């Protein structure tokens, strides 16, 4: 701590130093006077022999200082003084920077949370996802249990393979029945993820055996339901009418899958093994619904694992051609990449956009600084005349821009604090892990980093230019000389800004067009005034009575006041539920593995009427389509066109692979109706073929989601609906109560936030560009006042002067636009995967953007041009 003491006592040292030097001079002068010199002569001689007192004192003082730090401090002090001397300028710069840095920090905090942070598992870089696929990647699909079991025994690249799928169940035997989300997993969950339970044990291989019912619960569930009681181990809870033994509690930070933060329990695949079905799920190789995560053995690369899995998948396809022909390959990718999916492209586009905005902001500030350099020419020339070398001046000017950068950064951080929650609300659930984003310490570090970086970016060129001052001419001309290269520099900055602005605006324009097309696209049904909700009918209670329950329930639901019609559906549009089923055409038999397939939806009666899906031909399902009646199905238009072009599909008999609980495999079904295509997802590029089956002919299939068309505000029916269900069975909690509009809006969350963010950034970029252009033109007019005065005095028309200024602006705009259009054409294809119904090179969008940018730019130049035209030649010539 010696240096610290010295730091605080150094003023005493300075005093003593001065005193010593004074004593030295006095003593010497006295000696000299003894030799006969006058006092005046003696003092002068003493000083001469001593040397430069001030310099020596300064040199001696420096011993006590940290020279670099202190000269930086003095630079900073000077910079602060400069900032306060020009408050208007400083405010403008800080505001521009705050916008740029605030936006960057906000977006980057989201990118960090979503893409950069490791997954919350042990050694997450060794976690990979394994997908089944066809020969090409894009056909990738989920995995069936038997395939997973084969992978697990045959693959050597992994320490563990873990399969899982979502589930949900009703907790009963408590005060109020509770709907819980959970996960069915293979036993390797704990070793694969490397996260141990905080209480109890993980699953063991025995827990996968048929009949086993053990469960791991989440920390939150443990705290809320069991008040954190440690004796919870070994207790049983009733889920969906089955008793499960609690064997452990997972820690509070445990989230698996990371996209499902609300999971309350994890149980083993034993629940899928012993459904007293003809073929339990665990034995069904054609039902693909598992996600598989693997932990690579140390030293094994993703590529090696990928190779091995491809070999295994090909082998299985040969062994089981009936089921695996479509899944003859597999691929392995890092778990993080698979969690992110397409989102990373979108986020990177947004991040790129926001960085371009900052670049434009830096361009503006650089231009402002260049203009200021002209005002400060004389000061800088004076400093170099007094001995400052070029590096010293550059350092001083850079200190000023860095200080501006830091001030802007602080304001930007405040802005980011304010904006992040709003942006997160906009994003909602559409981006995995985004909810974890926040402006924390690393983000502040990032903000500081980009602040300093921007300080250098916008400061370096003005500083270098300024330091190149030609001393003699500047001082001689009284500081009014000009550096001709400035205009060239300033103009190129503007051209660059216009180009970048065009790129951003084109991007935003494409996203907006795409979004508008999405919202205007025909859904194939009428989405307003629809209420949807769901409840489970657990096998334990309703295995045999499900159909009767539904029939009664829908009758009573339709009788509620405000209800126009109601129906049940499995795989409702605008939810993420989807099932595919392959079917057999007895007239054109194909080998099993090559059978065509279609989307599968099973529905109650009145479904098409409730959603207002047009029935094009044939008939709807009726109550008489039950188990005893002939088995039937309805298809959509796309199905008819794809598989029976030019034929009448009504009356055709097909065999979709849907077991109805009867022996003898899936029954042959007659097509009794054709309905219009229904859009299943908010963002969907084409209408795929679909098959509808009557729920009453699949009594073993669970469960239907209710959809109600109302004559009143749909949400106002929620209490009545809850009362109705609970009056029929108090152990059936109603969940996921949503209007169709809400579901639709949730589906569009990702394109919406991309559009809003990119739109906002493009707007900001355009605004900054226009302001920058205005600044450059206004500056140019003020600099050319005398020239314009002379022109006017010599008889130039005011129109000509105006045209001259507008012409200058137009040249800059056109060059910038041309570069921008070229850059857009090159770069727009990154948006391809996020665009719907619009080509990345849509000529209309390009044209509209170019015209509007050019017009706004000319408008910005119009004001300075008017000022130029109104210059009074007499005044202009007199002022110089």
């Amino acid at each position, binding site marked *: 701590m010696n240096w610290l003491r*010295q730091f605080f006592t150094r003023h005493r*040292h300075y005093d*003593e*130093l001065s*005193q*010593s*030097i004074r*004593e*030295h001079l*006095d*003593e*010497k002068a*006295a000696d000299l006077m003894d030799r006969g010199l006058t006092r005046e002569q003696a003092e002068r001689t003493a000083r001469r*022999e*001593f*040397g*430069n*007192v001030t310099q*020596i*004192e300064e*040199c*001696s*003082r*420096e*011993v*006590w200082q940290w020279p670099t730090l202190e000269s930086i401090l003095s630079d900073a002090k000077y910079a602060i003084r400069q900032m306060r001397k020009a408050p208007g300028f400083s405010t403008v710069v800080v505001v521009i920077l705050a916008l740029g840095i605030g936006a960057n920090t906000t977006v980057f905090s989201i990118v960090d949370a979503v893409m950069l942070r490791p997954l919350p598992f042990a050694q997450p870089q060794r976690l990979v996802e394994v997908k089944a696929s066809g020969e090409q990647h894009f056909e990738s699909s989920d995995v069936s249990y038997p395939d997973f079991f084969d992978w697990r025994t045959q693959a050597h690249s992994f320490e563990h393979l873990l399969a899982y799928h979502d589930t949900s169940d009703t907790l009963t035997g408590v005060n109020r029945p509770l709907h819980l989300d959970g996960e069915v997993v293979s036993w390797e969950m704990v070793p694969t993820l490397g996260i141990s339970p905080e209480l109890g044990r993980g699953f063991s291989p025995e827990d996968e055996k048929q009949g086993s019912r053990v469960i791991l619960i989440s920390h939150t569930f443990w705290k809320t339901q069991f008040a954190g009681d440690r004796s919870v181990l070994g207790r049983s809870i009733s889920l969906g009418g089955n008793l499960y033994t609690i064997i452990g509690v997972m820690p509070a930070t445990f989230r698996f899958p990371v996209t499902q933060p609300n999971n309350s329990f994890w149980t083993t695949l034993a629940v899928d093994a012993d459904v007293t079905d003809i073929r339990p799920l665990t034995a069904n190789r054609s039902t693909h619904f598992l996600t598989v995560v693997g932990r690579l053995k140390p030293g094994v690369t993703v590529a090696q694992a990928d190779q091995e899995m491809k070999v295994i998948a090909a082998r299985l396809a040969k062994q089981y051609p009936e089921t695996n022909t479509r899944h003859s390959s597999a691929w392995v990718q890092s778990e993080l990449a698979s969690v992110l999916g397409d989102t990373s492209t979108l986020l990177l586009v947004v991040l790129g956009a926001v960085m371009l905005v900052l670049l434009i902001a830096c361009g503006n500030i650089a231009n402002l600084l260049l203009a200021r350099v002209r005002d400060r020419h004389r000061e800088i020339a004076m400093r170099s005349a007094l001995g400052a070398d070029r590096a010293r001046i550059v350092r001083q000017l850079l200190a000023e821009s860095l200080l501006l950068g830091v001030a802007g950064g602080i304001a930007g951080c405040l802005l980011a604090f304010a904006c992040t929650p709003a942006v997160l609300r906009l994003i909602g659930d559409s981006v995995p892990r985004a909810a974890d984003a926040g402006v924390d310490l690393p983000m502040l570090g990032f903000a500081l980093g980009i602040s300093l970086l921007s300080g250098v970016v916008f400061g370096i060129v003005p500083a270098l230019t300024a330091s190149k001052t030609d001393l003699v001419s500047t001082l001689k001309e009284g500081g009014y000389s000009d550096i001709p290269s400035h205009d060239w520099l300033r103009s190129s900055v503007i051209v660059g800004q216009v180009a970048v602005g065009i790129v951003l605006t084109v991007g935003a324009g494409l996203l907006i067009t795409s979004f508008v097309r999405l919202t205007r696209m025909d859904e194939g049904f009428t989405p307003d005034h629809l209420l949807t909700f769901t409840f489970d009918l657990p096998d334990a209670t309703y295995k045999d009575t499900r159909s009767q329950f539904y029939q009664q329930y829908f009758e009573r639901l339709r009788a509620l006041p405000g209800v126009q019609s109601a129906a049940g559906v499995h795989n409702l549009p605008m939810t993420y539920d989807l099932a595919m089923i392959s079917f057999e055409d007895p007239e054109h038999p194909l080998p099993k593995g090559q059978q065509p397939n279609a989307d599968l939806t099973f529905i109650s009666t009145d479904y098409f009427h409730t959603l207002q899906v047009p029935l094009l031909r044939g008939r709807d399902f009726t109550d008489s389509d039950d188990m005893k009646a002939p088995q039937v199905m309805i298809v959509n238009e796309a199905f008819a066109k794809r598989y029976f072009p030019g034929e009448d599909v009504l009356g055709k008999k097909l065999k979709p692979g849907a077991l109805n609980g009867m022996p003898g495999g899936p029954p042959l079904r007659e097509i009794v109706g054709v309905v219009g295509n229904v859009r299943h997802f908010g963002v969907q590029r084409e209408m795929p073929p679909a098959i509808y089956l009557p729920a009453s002919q699949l009594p073993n299939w669970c469960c239907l989601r209710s959809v109600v068309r109302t004559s009143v505000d749909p949400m106002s029916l929620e209490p009545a609906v809850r009362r109705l269900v609970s009056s029929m069975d108090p152990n059936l909690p109603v969940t996921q109560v949503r209007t169709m509009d809400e579901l639709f809006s949730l589906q569009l969350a990702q394109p919406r936030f991309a559009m809003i963010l990119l739109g906002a950034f493009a707007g900001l970029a355009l605004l900054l560009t226009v302001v920058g252009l205005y600044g450059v033109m206004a500056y140019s007019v003020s600099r050319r006042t005398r020239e314009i005065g002379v022109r006017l005095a010599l008889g130039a028309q005011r129109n000509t002067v105006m045209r001259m200024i507008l012409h200058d602006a137009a040249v800059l705009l056109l060059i910038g636009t041309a570069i921008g259009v070229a850059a857009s054409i090159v770069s727009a294809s990154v948006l391809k995967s996020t665009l719907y119904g619009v080509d990345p090179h849509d000529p209309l969008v390009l044209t509209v953007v170019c015209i509007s940018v050019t017009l706004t730019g000319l408008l910005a130049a119009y004001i300075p041009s008017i000022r130029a035209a109104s210059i009074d030649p007499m005044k202009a010539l007199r002022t110089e």
Partner: protein
Amino acid sequence: MKSLILTYLFKTTIVAHMKKKAQYRGLFPGALEMMILKTLSWKPMHGYALAQRLKDISEDYLQIEEGSLYPALQRMLKTGWLETEMGLSARNRPVRVFKVTEAGKKHLEQELASVEKMFAGITRVLTLAEQ
């Protein structure tokens, strides 16, 4: 012999010092400090007296700017080889005198030893080189 070496050192060091900080990267780092320590350990002195004394013993061979001593004195104060206290000048005026500390004495001894060794080496080479 020793005084000649000191004089030589003194000269180079002071000249070097005038050329900014180059002296410590020169041939004899620490030479000025050594001379100051040697002089002051004979008797604590104030700056003027020290300068005079250095001039006298080098027999006016050195025409130096007296002020150049001060940065070196400050450095030695900072390092702890010197301390200051109030004393009297030759004219009986109260002045701040510089005094060698224990650490300073130790440093001087070490430096003298190493310089002597170095010069012994150099002298030996110079004497024997052509034999």
